[in-house]
């Protein structure tokens, strides 16, 4: 199994930045697109996507696959996803280890899964179906969670690892999500990272979060905090040079600010991955 080569340091593509990206060709190595934003009939979103994909590598990142739902897979959605894949030629396609609704409805949220053998078998089977349909491995991302279930039979990291191994899929390690869930559920973020198989991780996510009344909330509306940068350095030590990107979905700053934030990631990676002198 050949893990894809690192793309370097990227950003989430957001409509606020289309003009500046196309006018200035900023030093960003690649972009991650939110798949659903481009699953539309036509118009500016797809024109912009075409223009960006001519200049930069992209990866597709979805929020609505609902891979862990007990509702049937949405084949209409999968066909639209495949159509977008043909158009954007992504380096990989990802979504979240979560469910978003049942009974034909969507809650438009990334809900955590009970870490049970039944759920594991179910998720592995569904990833297999999606990979067969798309004809390629997909990447699955650990989510932030504010609850866990009484029925869980294993730790989250064991569940994630088993999903990846049994389904033979890639993983996105969302470092911020590890930090948020670790804080909310009082688990060791280092233990989480140490249990994720090195050869499965194709991408790191970095993002900001907020403090809620009952814990940390994965809001993507602030800069990456120091603790998450430290955890990122820890992840780099274990996984090596992995494609890294910053997600910002609310309170979106000017592109230059995000590029500067990305430079912090570059700097940490340069220091952490520096070859040891003989």
């Amino acid at each position: 199994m050949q893990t894809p080569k690192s793309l370097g340091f990227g950003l989430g593509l957001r409509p606020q930045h289309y003009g500046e990206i196309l006018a200035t060709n900023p030093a960003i190595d690649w972009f991650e697109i939110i798949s659903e934003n481009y699953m539309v009939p036509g118009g500016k979103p797809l024109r912009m996507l075409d223009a960006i994909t001519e200049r930069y590598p992209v990866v597709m990142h979805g929020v609505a696959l609902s891979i862990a739902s007990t509702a049937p897979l949405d084949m209409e959605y999968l066909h639209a996803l495949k159509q977008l894949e043909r158009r954007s030629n992504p380096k990989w396609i990802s979504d979240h280890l979560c469910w978003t609704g049942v009974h034909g409805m969507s809650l438009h949220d990334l809900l955590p899964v009970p870490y049970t053998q039944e759920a594991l078998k179910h998720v592995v089977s569904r990833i297999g179906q999606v990979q067969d349909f798309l004809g390629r491995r997909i990447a699955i991302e650990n989510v932030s969670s504010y609850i866990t279930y009484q029925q869980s039979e294993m730790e989250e990291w064991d569940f994630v690892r088993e999903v990846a191994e049994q389904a033979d899929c890639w993983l996105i390690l969302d470092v911020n999500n590890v930090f948020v869930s670790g804080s909310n559920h009082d688990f060791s973020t280092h233990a989480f990272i140490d249990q994720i198989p090195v050869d499965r991780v194709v991408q790191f996510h970095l993002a900001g979060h907020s403090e809620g009344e009952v814990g940390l909330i994965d809001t993507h509306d602030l800069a990456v905090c120091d603790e998450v940068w430290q955890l990122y350095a820890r992840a780099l030590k274990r996984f090596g040079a992995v494609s890294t990107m910053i997600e910002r979905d609310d309170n979106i700053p000017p592109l230059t600010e995000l590029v500067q934030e990305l430079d912090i990631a570059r700097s940490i990676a340069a220091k952490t991955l520096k070859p040891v002198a003989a």
Partner: protein
Amino acid sequence: MKISLADIQSAVHQAIVEKSTVALKFIAPLPHGNALAAFKVYQDAYTLRLTGFLTNDFPMLKAYIGDDRFDEIARHYIHANPSTHPNARWYSEDFPAFLKSSNAFTDNGECIELVTLEQALSHAFDAADVPAMTLADLAAILPAHAGDLQINLQPSATVLTFQQNTTSIWSALKADIEPPHPHKLDQPQKILVFRQVQASRFRLLGEDEAMALAFIRDGVSFAVLCEMMAFQNDDGEVPKRAAMFLRIWLESQLLMAESAAKAVK
């Protein structure tokens, strides 16, 4: 008894939508804080997120009626319309119809028209891409075949009919100035919503042009268009007016290129 994944998901889904405690028995105690409060994060996020989708799609209505009233109407819509599409882009599709069927704006017809206009602009924005007919396409048609020219509107174009001064209200809101007082117009107003250079826009239509656009909605030849216009008002100027509209429509990228291709063949 072993609880299945489907049972857990069904209860959690119900508890989020109904803001009930039906799923709490499945939620583990938190190391610090209580599980009920943690679960409420998901319950609150559900309403906030769907309200955000509506705000994103109907910013002018929100600016017009204010945050509190908009949020109240959004809550009613969310309660009556759980999202059935995985893509948030389509969540608000039934919002105008919902408002029409509710009594929220019985005496405020301009609000219904405002959301109708906002939705048409959204549809125009990401409607399917079809190459637009150009002057060059037109020039490629031999004069003898000009009457055979098939003209069809782009999928992004639509014509609305408003009874109120809604477009003036929309324009004021867009410019962030005090909107005019709503009132019923002496004559219904026809509005063309379309996409040009990747931006959705609208303009008011004269009676003649509105009628001509109605004729070509489903595609007709240029000759038939002239005949239909002449049938409505044969003042001897029909070909001239039809040619003028054709020029305006070409400049606005309103027509589909494939129509011209058919005429060339």
